[in-house]
């Protein structure tokens, strides 16, 4: 399991496209639009922007790291090869999910650093740690979702599918763009995990715990995506 994690981390770290998309893009966005002074409901705007971009980095990192290479690995027969080594299916699945969660860190660290240095965000260390903790746990449903997409889609479609899902969730969840969504969409967004994570993050930096609804939405997505992954995995590896 450790050797599998080490292998996958080294592989991900060498993927330049991935690093640009998940570190350079959110950090760049933050530097362009996030460094506003002023407050909103007693919280620095630059801190709210930090939450949004950290969620971008976290959700994108989890989706891509957990699921991104899986479709190619399947197509090339690498997963089949792994199946005849002592690495069990359960460990493979666990490894992919842990990888998704771990790969949240580089982007979140980059955005945090930008917030600290360029955005002059002042947060007590405890809240900052709580935010990072929330992002790690809250990216679990995204990792599972990415893995599910990697298991059902093929090759380039999978990469594209993950990016489409990522942006759809980012827009719906208010990670990208500001203000209310038109009509029914404002209701729909309440049910997205990205919205739950952004709102939860905003609560944490204001010194509150995330609400039950926010935590509940994330938990439901985690369970649903987790069950979908397991069912799909069983089906595809069925005798």
């Amino acid at each position: 399991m450790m050797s599998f994690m080490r292998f996958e981390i080294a592989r991900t770290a060498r993927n330049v496209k991935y690093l640009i998309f998940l570190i350079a893009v959110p950090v760049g966005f933050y530097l362009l639009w996030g460094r506003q002074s002023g407050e909103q409901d007693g919280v620095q705007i630059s801190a709210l922007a930090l939450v949004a971009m950290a969620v971008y980095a976290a959700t994108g990192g989890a989706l891509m790291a957990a699921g991104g290479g899986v479709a190619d690995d399947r197509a090339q027969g690498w997963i089949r090869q792994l199946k005849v080594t002592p690495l069990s299916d359960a460990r493979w699945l666990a490894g992919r999910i842990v990888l998704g969660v771990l790969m949240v860190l580089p982007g979140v660290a980059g955005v945090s650093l930008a917030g600290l240095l360029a955005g002059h965000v002042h947060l007590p260390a405890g809240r900052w740690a709580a935010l990072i903790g929330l992002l790690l746990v809250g990216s679990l449903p995204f990792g599972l979702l990415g893995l599910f997409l990697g298991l059902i889609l093929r090759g380039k479609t999978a990469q594209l599918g993950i990016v489409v899902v990522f942006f759809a969730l980012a827009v719906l969840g208010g990670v990208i763009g500001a203000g209310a969504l038109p009509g029914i969409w404002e209701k729909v967004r309440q049910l997205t995990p990205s919205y739950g994570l952004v709102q939860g993050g905003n609560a944490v930096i204001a010194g509150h715990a995330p609400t039950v609804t926010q935590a509940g939405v994330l938990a439901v997505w985690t369970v649903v995506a987790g069950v979908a992954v397991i069912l799909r995995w069983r089906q595809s590896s069925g005798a």
Partner: protein
Amino acid sequence: MENSTVLFREVSRRFGTTQALDRASFSVGRGETVALLGHNGAGKSTAVDLMLGLRRPDDGDITILGTSPSRAVAGGRVGALLQTGGLPDGATIRDIVRLACGLYGGKRRVGEVLELAGLTELAGRQATELSGGQAQRVRFAIAVSGRPDLLFLDEPTVALDVEARREFWAVVRGAAEDGASVVFATHYLEEADQFADRVVVLSHGRVVADATPSAIKAMAGGRAVRCVLAAPDPQRLLALPGVVDVTIHGNDVLLRTDDADRTVEMLYTSIGGVRDLEVTGAGLEEALISLSSRKDQS
């Protein structure tokens, strides 16, 4: 039965309307190298998949190293080079071999495995930069990185040219020296002949023969002897020891024989004037037709 590495008993497996394996039985002893020989679709890959626990049989029992296929694989006692197995993008050969060594619990060192598979010079390359033969050696490296008691090679040389095939088998021989059992699937009779202690011939999912390579070749109508004679006489040629069939085109003669050594000897002593003599194995095609019909008659 304690000495059997593989026990394959009355195993059947169907895919849709295709009976991939039909009550097939064979075994592999400890340290033995066994070839599964047959055409595409004969059931070789299905048999390998079943022995690795990648699929389950509809019927019959499979015991690998005294346990179930999936337990043997999970215990790291089996190595496999799959026909449909592949290598990952974005990783060097060294990364891949290091991963394999780690997954098998460090029974071999990375440098040792690279050396064994002739990959030391290529360790820094990506899998996508390798030739077919080189990529196949990487898959082989993965398969032997756990010093397995049992090694499966599913059509390991199918896409390789003659030179790469020779190199590949040289590497396999080097690695299998420490007493591991080897099961390889092939549709080259020649490959089975050269590398196997025993050959299990599959046809339409059934085991139609299970014997030493030379016995298989004898059963299959033996060998083909080609030569040029000044004035070939079909009657005299057919009367030579071992000869079962004679084909003549002008001065070119093709003899099919059960006993090539005696046929050739008598060809020189009783007929003479022999030029351009060549002895080859009969093709797999003839072998399978002959073996399948034998089985049907019995």
